[in-house]
């Protein structure tokens, strides 16, 4: 408690100065000390490199640029800790955090705090070859603030031995639940425990029906629409009818995967990482009997939420020229290909999804492309932590049936409004 209070103090001290700097930076955006011609050694900051892909990539870069070497600062594997680590270093105006890996949901917050170099004018990068939703997720206030590096989209895992043709729409899937009933297994599950995954699933439901959670300013709620209602209602009905089991209220990614691999689940919404696990895990009884399809929608493909990371440039970097080149390097085809083959990270470059070799290695790639092409970023909001809490708390009550859908959406709107004080 004590150390906590002390760190809040340091934080706010730095926050105040950072905000002051943001304000001055605002009047003259390229007025920061470093320009795109400043070169020299830089540091790249990212969470734990589980697949050992970053070090070989940096080696490649360092061999080609001996005077502009990139050092790797590896953070923990916990997303909250990564976020807090970045915030602390930005508040301290640390010039040693040149290029940082930014989760799509942090972009707006960091941009609004004035910590990320806007990627325009001298710092513009070419995004024409990238999947559009990944660019949208890195854009705040009509300005690109980070370079998309990896992406992620939701897939529908299904049992091809029980359902020969995957459902294209939600209604078709609900009809297929008859099969689950006959087999005495659960029908559908996503991530419905009260955590970030719930925001992903609720956003998908609302977006699929054409609704949105907030407007383009990232803070005005837009939930008072028939589309948003219909979206949340679909999930609530799923729980009511038992097509989504009550136990799914405790599911994060892993619990759903375990249930699916144990053969107790007909349909599962999850990320691509499940594919290789479900086909190789010793405990998986569905190794040869599952396949993937795009998420089911209202009349066609559903709308996935978007995951993934971008590379952002710190405004405090002293070698922004090198930083910019390195960010472009991360987006080059060669490196994007490495991310796919070495770490199974979904690329942001659209043409790689049609590559025959890659498709052979990752059979879900073309399905994933459909998913990401139809994806909508989770709300790009500078108040994201408050926003996701508003969604999680109220959606949980609606799914449990302790609150009506209308009331849940009204409360969600009010809580989002309260976050920005408007």
């Amino acid at each position, binding site marked *: 408690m*004590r150390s*906590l*209070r002390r760190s*809040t103090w340091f934080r706010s001290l730095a926050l105040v100065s950072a905000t002051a700097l943001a*304000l001055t930076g605002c009047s003259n955006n390229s007025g920061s000390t470093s320009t795109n011609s400043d070169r020299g050694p830089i540091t790249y900051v990212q969470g734990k490199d589980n697949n050992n892909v970053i070090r070989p990539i940096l080696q490649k870069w360092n061999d080609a640029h001996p005077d502009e070497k990139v050092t790797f600062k590896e953070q923990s594997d916990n997303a909250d800790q990564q976020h807090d680590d970045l915030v602390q270093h930005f508040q301290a105006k640390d010039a040693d955090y040149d290029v940082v890996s930014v989760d799509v949901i942090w972009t707006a917050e960091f941009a609004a705090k004035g910590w990320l170099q806007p990627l325009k004018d001298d710092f513009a990068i070419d995004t024409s070859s990238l999947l559009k939703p990944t660019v949208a997720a890195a854009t705040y206030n009509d300005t690109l603030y980070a370079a998309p590096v990896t992406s992620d989209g939701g897939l529908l895992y299904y049992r091809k031995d029980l359902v020969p043709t995957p459902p294209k729409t939600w209604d078709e899937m609900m009809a297929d639940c008859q099969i689950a009933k006959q087999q005495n297994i659960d029908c559908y599950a996503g991530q419905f425990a009260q955590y970030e995954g719930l925001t992903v699933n609720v956003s998908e439901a609302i977006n699929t029906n054409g609704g949105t959670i907030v407007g383009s300013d990232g803070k005005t709620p837009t939930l008072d629409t028939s589309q948003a209602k219909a979206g949340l209602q679909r999930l609530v009905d799923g729980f009511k009818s038992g097509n989504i089991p009550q136990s799914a209220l405790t599911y994060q990614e892993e619990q759903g995967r375990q249930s699916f691999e144990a053969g107790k689940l007909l349909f599962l919404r999850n990320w691509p990482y499940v594919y290789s696990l479900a086909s190789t895990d010793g405990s998986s009884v569905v190794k040869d009997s599952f396949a993937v399809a795009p998420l089911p929608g209202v009349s066609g493909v559903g709308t996935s939420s978007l995951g993934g990371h971008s590379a952002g440039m710190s405004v405090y970097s002293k070698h922004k020229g090198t930083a910019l080149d390195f960010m472009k390097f991360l987006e080059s085809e060669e490196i994007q290909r490495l991310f796919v083959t070495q770490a199974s990270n979904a690329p942001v470059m659209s043409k790689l999804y049609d590559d025959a070799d890659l498709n052979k290695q990752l059979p879900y790639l073309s399905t994933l492309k459909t998913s990401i092409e139809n994806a909508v970023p989770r709300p790009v909001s500078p108040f994201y*932590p408050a926003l996701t809490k*508003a969604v999680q*708390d109220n959606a949980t009550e609606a799914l449990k049936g302790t609150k009506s859908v209308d009331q849940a959406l009204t409360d969600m709107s009010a809580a989002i409004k309260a976050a*920005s004080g408007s």
Partner: protein
Amino acid sequence: MSTQTLGGARRSGDAPHGGEPPRLGLQDAHRRRVRNAWLLIAPTLVLLAVVIGYPIVSAVIMSLEKDPGLDPATGFFVEGGFAGLSNYSHWLLQQCNSSGGPVPCPPGSLGSQFWPSTFTTLFFTAVTVPLETVLGFWFALIMNRAFRGRALVRTAILVPWAIPTAVTAKLWYFIFAVAGIVNSLLGRQILWTSDAWASRFAIVVIDTWKATPFMALLILAGLQLIPDEIYEAARVDGASTWKTFWTITIPLVRPALIVAILFRILDVLRIYDLPAIFGGGNATATWSILVVQQMRQGANAASALSTIVFLFIFFIAFVFVRFLGADLIGRGQKGKDAS
């Protein structure tokens, strides 16, 4: 008078060496001792002021500032300015800002969660500490007895305390999973990590499991200080086991017991890791969890919250020490009269 001169001369001559002069006025000796004592504890006091006083004071100062707000024209955050006590009323009255003045904080905002989290925290304290005390006492009595295999029993009882809380929380998470062992044994499908009261119950079970050994250990230390002769005398006088327990064991173990209970109360009031890792959503969100969540949304409001929590915990600890510290003997004797 002569002593004073003597002492004064000595003082100026000997002080740098700090040696004790052979003949010295009583008053002066006392003064010197006091001064030396202050000098000796000064480093500690400075250290305490830096690591305890400074954070507390700075948190209070921060709590009087508004959190940065978004400038609608630029889309950038700007400094919030002086807040007065609005951060405090935000938590205590659950008022949130809006363009039309303060409104009650809507469900799904952190502001609406202060009193529910207060209830949760106090509930955990009120339920787990008595459970841990009773069970811990029982364990301590067992461990205090001489029997074959006592070392083994002592080790076994201490194991839960030795496991890091994060690991404990994860272990029990699997035990309480929907498809976990508890549900299989009960033959029911209880959502231990989602349902409000089920998850609170689970937290109580886990915390009791984990902290009872701590209680037992402290109480055991107290029990071992009680001389055997007193028990022998009681036996010679023909006192029953029950009477021996209430008139000898309880009063004599009281100091150790009170310290143990106070430690546990403070621990549970600050509990973070167990509910944060086990889950349960808002139903198990304690004060500390709320503070950490608020840190990511605004450090100044979080400072106000941690100051409020600090005062609450301080108050509770104060009441406990004053009330129980003075009264437990009286109660113990009343118990004796009744029996």
